[in-house]
């Protein structure tokens, strides 16, 4: 915290802000704890080893969950049904799911097996699942340690060709140019699919599907590049959407490092049902916490549709809410990539001072987190040169305020998903600025009660006020009021509502319970 100037934040406000945010999420967490979703159950199936697709192309995790759901058995949890089936048929979960996929039988119709045997089966499957996840996690942790964690801000770039092999090639080139993090952008509207596509993608629109095979291909490519450059290279994908927890599980299985994972993004920007998203995000983050996957929250999106200055406090408010939800999932702060963005209209007088105040507010408010800073996008135009200048100042603010994860701006942001050369130029810009201004944050102070300190405290004050209101009306009503991103969503509406269900009395899910208790143990 000594490497950057300070905002002299009103610590009373900071305390209040956290307190209110906690109360806000406490209210929602009650709803979450009582519920599960089809996607959460599919996650269980996946972690128990259910992979692949049926003949008609439906992922087997969907197959088994729908199978039980149709027969109204899901409120017991998929774990029981899989274990019961495995015992009954003396097969592995995968073989079981394949059989269901072939419509040989329904899990519900299989005779209930001896309780103790089923329980043992569940424990066995759970133990195996968790130990595999831990193995992957530990391997990654070790590789990171062996190769060394690159200095922050990490250089984060995206690939988005729609062809995973082309993506892999471009990702390798980027890593060799200096990229520390590679994100594979998902194909348009994948978040609205209530299943995860399968296999390698060679044609996507605006991106490449998030599939387990794609994760694997990319992980391998990056590990190769990492060994070549002697620097750990992180892999990112997107969790938010209707398959939020499943994608986290896929990330855990394939050793991803980061996942875009926001507690409200799906609601606001994809019109996904609130309850669905809240329940899903909990498990999704639990899996991330357990697997040492850093989440990246999506506050940058708010100021794409609302004004970055007058609505700055909604970013702060959401960051605090995201933090509390993450803590509830037992996530350590160092895995919280709290999101924010450099989106102020470049024509605003002293816009840079606002940006500095906002960026530093995020940094100071979450001292142990790893803030994820997003580049100018909405005011980027076809004037690629002006855009390159904006990206230069964006990089400067980042190094000056000590951000952790820097999604590099592309000079062609307004035109197309990045060309190879656009990515090179982005990396070159960041390397130049980060090195040339390395110790700038250490060197400067802001005038006491100057523009920047005042501005940051003002945003914080507004956030506290807003949080107080949200606390009063409840988060779900606040979202109905259009609090975030100037977007209003109704509680009952939105996609995926039908996938939410109240857990039965006999609901059983040792997988996540074990994760919870292990993580709780670590917290002590």
């Amino acid at each position: 915290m000594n490497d950057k100037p300070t905002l002299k934040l009103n610590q009373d406000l900071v305390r209040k802000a956290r307190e209110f945010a906690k109360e806000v999420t406490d209210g929602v967490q009650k709803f979450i704890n009582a519920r599960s979703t089809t996607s959460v159950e599919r996650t269980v199936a996946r972690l128990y080893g259910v992979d692949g697709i049926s003949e008609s192309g439906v992922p087997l995790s969907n197959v088994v969950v729908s199978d039980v759901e149709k027969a109204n058995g899901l409120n017991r949890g998929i774990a029981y049904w899989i274990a019961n089936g495995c015992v009954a048929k003396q097969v592995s979960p995968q073989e079981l799911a394949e059989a269901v996929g072939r419509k040989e039988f329904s899990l519900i119709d299989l005779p209930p097996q001896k309780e103790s045997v089923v329980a043992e089966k569940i424990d066995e499957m759970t133990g195996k699942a968790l130990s595999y996840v831990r193995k992957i996690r530990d391997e990654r942790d070790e590789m990171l340690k062996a190769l060394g964690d690159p200095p922050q801000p990490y250089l984060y770039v995206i690939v988005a060709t729609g062809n995973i092999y082309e993506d892999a090639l471009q990702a390798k080139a980027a890593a060799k140019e200096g990229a520390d993090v590679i994100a594979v952008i998902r194909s348009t509207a994948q978040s609205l699919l209530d299943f995860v596509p399968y296999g390698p993608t060679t044609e996507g629109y605006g991106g490449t599907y998030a599939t387990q095979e794609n994760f694997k291909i990319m992980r391998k490519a990056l590990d190769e590049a990492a060994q070549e450059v002697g620097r750990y290279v992180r892999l990112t994908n997107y969790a938010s959407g209707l398959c939020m927890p499943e994608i986290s599980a896929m990330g855990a299985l394939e050793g991803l490092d980061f996942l875009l994972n926001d507690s409200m993004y799906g609601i606001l920007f994809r019109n996904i049902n609130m309850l669905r998203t809240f329940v899903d995000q909990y498990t999704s983050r639990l899996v991330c916490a357990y697997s040492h996957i850093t989440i990246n929250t999506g506050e940058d999106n708010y100021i794409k549709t609302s004004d970055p200055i007058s609505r700055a406090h909604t970013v702060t408010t959401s960051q605090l809410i995201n933090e509390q939800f993450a803590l509830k999932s037992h996530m350590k702060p160092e895995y919280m990539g709290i999101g924010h963005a450099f989106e102020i209209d470049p024509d605003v007088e002293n816009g840079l001072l606002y940006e500095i105040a906002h960026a530093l507010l995020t940094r100071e408010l979450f001292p142990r987190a790893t803030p994820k800073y997003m580049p100018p996008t909405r005011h980027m135009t076809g004037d690629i040169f002006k855009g390159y200048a904006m990206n230069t100042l964006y990089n400067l603010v980042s190094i000056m305020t000590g951000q952790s994860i820097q999604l590099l701006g592309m000079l062609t942001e307004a035109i197309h998903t990045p060309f190879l050369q656009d990515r090179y130029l982005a990396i070159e810009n960041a390397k130049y600025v980060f090195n040339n201004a390395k110790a700038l944050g250490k060197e400067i102070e802001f005038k006491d009660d100057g523009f920047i300190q005042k501005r940051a405290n003002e945003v914080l004050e507004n956030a506290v006020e807003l949080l107080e209101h949200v606390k009063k009306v409840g988060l779900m009503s606040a979202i109905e009021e259009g609090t975030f991103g100037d977007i209003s969503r109704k509680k009952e509406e939105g996609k995926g509502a039908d996938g939410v269900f109240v857990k039965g009395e006999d609901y059983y899910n040792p997988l996540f319970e074990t994760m919870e208790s292990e993580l709780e143990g670590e917290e002590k």
Partner: protein
Amino acid sequence: MSVKKVDLTHLRPYGDQMDDGAVQLSFTLPIPDGPRGREAARQMANSMGLSEVQVVFSQDLKENFTFFVVYGHLEKYADYTSIKAIGVEAPKMDMEQVNDYISKYVKRPVVVIGATIGTDAHTVGLDSILNMKGFHGDSGLERYKMFKVHNLGSQVSPTDLAKKIRETKADIVLISQIVTQRNIHIKNMTKLVDILEAEGLRKSVLLIAGGPRITHELAVELGYDAGFGAGSMPSEVASYIASEMAKRALSSSKER
């Protein structure tokens, strides 16, 4: 004064003097960096009609790719005099003028329906045209008292749109297309026109497309009445609608 004047029938790029043809290029080639690579870049530029090509920068992008920055002098030219204005042609009116114009010639409020079609989830552009707030201080169509606006939001399918057109008795259909990767906008736009024609709705509405990569020319080519590109203002769209609706009202009253 001895500055060479422009010859509009032989229009050429201008670097620092008339007709020098100066052009800046950048591109990547899937070959290694080095003299041979730079020569390939030079030949590439030559193939485009550039002379005195200077490969001023080459940079290894790894994995056998090389980035080049190139300057050269274009020997080709365009005949500017033969280019007719292909933008939307309409008198520029402000909100009050538009309202008056519609009152006078159309004599009833005009029903506008707007949507982003296909899987495109970008709403900011369409909203800039439709919402009260408008764009850069220019009010959106909702604020015009002679427009009745239905904003259907994003990711609307052509069939749903057709249904809504009937329901609302829309005069004007505004669609937005932002994502253009692999020409998905062309596919979406074509599909919509096909469906509207199949449903017998195409002729009864004014069909307008917009988006940063949309040009009037492209829109017309795809069977639309007009297209609006990057930086369009709501009042421009409003003026166009008013003048077109007036024309239609006049011609149909004459027909009677």
